[in-house]
């Protein structure tokens, strides 16, 4: 994996492999942007976190089979996030403003 000026991460963290991946990305990125509701607040991907005990029991064999994390995490639960673009779908206006600002920050003389 190469170095990143800006790494855009979408989606929540549902498995240990994803946790490792996002940590690696964070270590190689100057800026990390969490894009969309799943990355920023962990929903709707993390909807199983609020299942009843009975519901959790009924899906447990699948969590085990695929080695998913006990709770779905948002990106900031795992790494430091520099910018958040909320929304489902993400807001194009906020995205463009954020990217503009980041580029100015990283390349102030251009």
């Amino acid at each position, binding site marked *: 994996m190469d170095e990143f000026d800006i790494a855009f991460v979408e989606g929540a963290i549902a498995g240990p492999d994803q946790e490792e991946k996002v940590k690696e990305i964070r270590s190689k990125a100057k800026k990390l942007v969490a894009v969309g509701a799943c990355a920023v607040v962990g929903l709707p991907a993390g*909807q*199983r976190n609020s299942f009843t005990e009975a*519901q959790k029991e009924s899906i447990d064999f699948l969590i085990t089979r695929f080695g998913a994390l006990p709770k779905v995490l948002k990106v900031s639960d795992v790494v430091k996030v520099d910018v958040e673009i909320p929304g489902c779908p993400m807001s194009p206006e906020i995205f463009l403003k954020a990217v503009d600002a980041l580029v100015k920050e990283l390349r102030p003389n251009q």
Partner: protein
Amino acid sequence: MEHLTKIEGDASVSIHAEDGKVTEVKFGITDYKRFFTEAMKGKPIAAIPSHLARICGTCSNAHIMAAIEACENALDIQPTKQTEILRSLTMHGLIIRDHALHLYLFSMPDLFGKDAFLDFDESDETQHQMLHDGFDIKAAGNYLATLIAGRSVHAMYPVIGGFLHFPSKEGIDEAVQKLESVREAVLRLIKVFQDAPNHFDRKTHYMALIADEGFGYINGKIKTSRGETFTEGEYRGLLEHTVMLQSQASAYKYKGESYLVGALARINIAKDNLHPKTKESAKEALALFPSTDIFHNNLAQAIEILHSVDESLDLLKNNTFVPEPIIKKPSREAIGIGVVEAPRGTLYHKVVLGADGIIKEGEVIVPTGQNQINIEEDIGRLVEKLLAEGLAEDKIPMEIEKLIRAYDPCMSCGAHFLKVNWI
């Protein structure tokens, strides 16, 4: 080391080959399960379409249409004629944008030996044209979807019982202008995929929801390549659930055999129902169907873009849209079924509604799940074919990726994963 360049989904393939024979292929969708059908339970019916829309960030509006159909079926709501036209336009906007995304951004780089669409060479006339065509067509599809449904992803205007907002005359005029201006680009796209060099022939069964009249994506009967016809209500009974342990998505068989859904299935079964202008302009390409070449799924999608352009232009020019109230009916204990053709194939939603208006349970069967077994079997046969032709082992993963992309699974970028175990 491969890295994912596009942002949809994840898949894995492991292949065991011995002496030119493939002994095992395992294709699995590795996106972690999000348990939408479990999460539906306990939600009020009004929340279901926007909830199930979030299953996918590209064919979202198809999920909205299927969910609305299922919920209206449960509540015994018949949409008005205008609502049906607006829903058709929503689907056409989706088909134009989503097929263009797949064809230009996912499949076309392979044809030009590029990793990504944005790597295309602007100084090369053809690649320059393709770059502009791709974004123009996507923009036209986006514009139509935004005008009619509010957004091209997770649309807000379509609801159970009707629409919350209606297109303005100015908006319609602009949509017409945009769609007319991209028609030439679509013809160029059809030519590109008509002439594309990759072919993989394999006989399989097909299934699609086919309209009683015309070529649409919302209403109709399920037709199979065996010549059978079923109602939407009978659809679930046709599908035999099959567990693929390595995959987080369910797989399905029909009468014990794998089958294909998607543009190739639709064009194979119902090409005669396409818009007359489409049939005229794409005559040469259409002569290749019915086809058993999986790469013709790409060509079929290009033809469908043209049909959606032609059909939308008719619908926009020949109708005036007026505000209509949302149809409401009291909750009741009922089962509702909705079946639509999403861009990638037949999509099925079922809701079980309680008298209190709360959903007790539901079911969703997505097209990519239905194509999984075919994809796995095709990979095995392709690898054997390539080994027999003497292709270098390190070139094989790329060929497998091209095949998987032709299916347009809802995780195309996941195709940059390949791990081939050679024994």
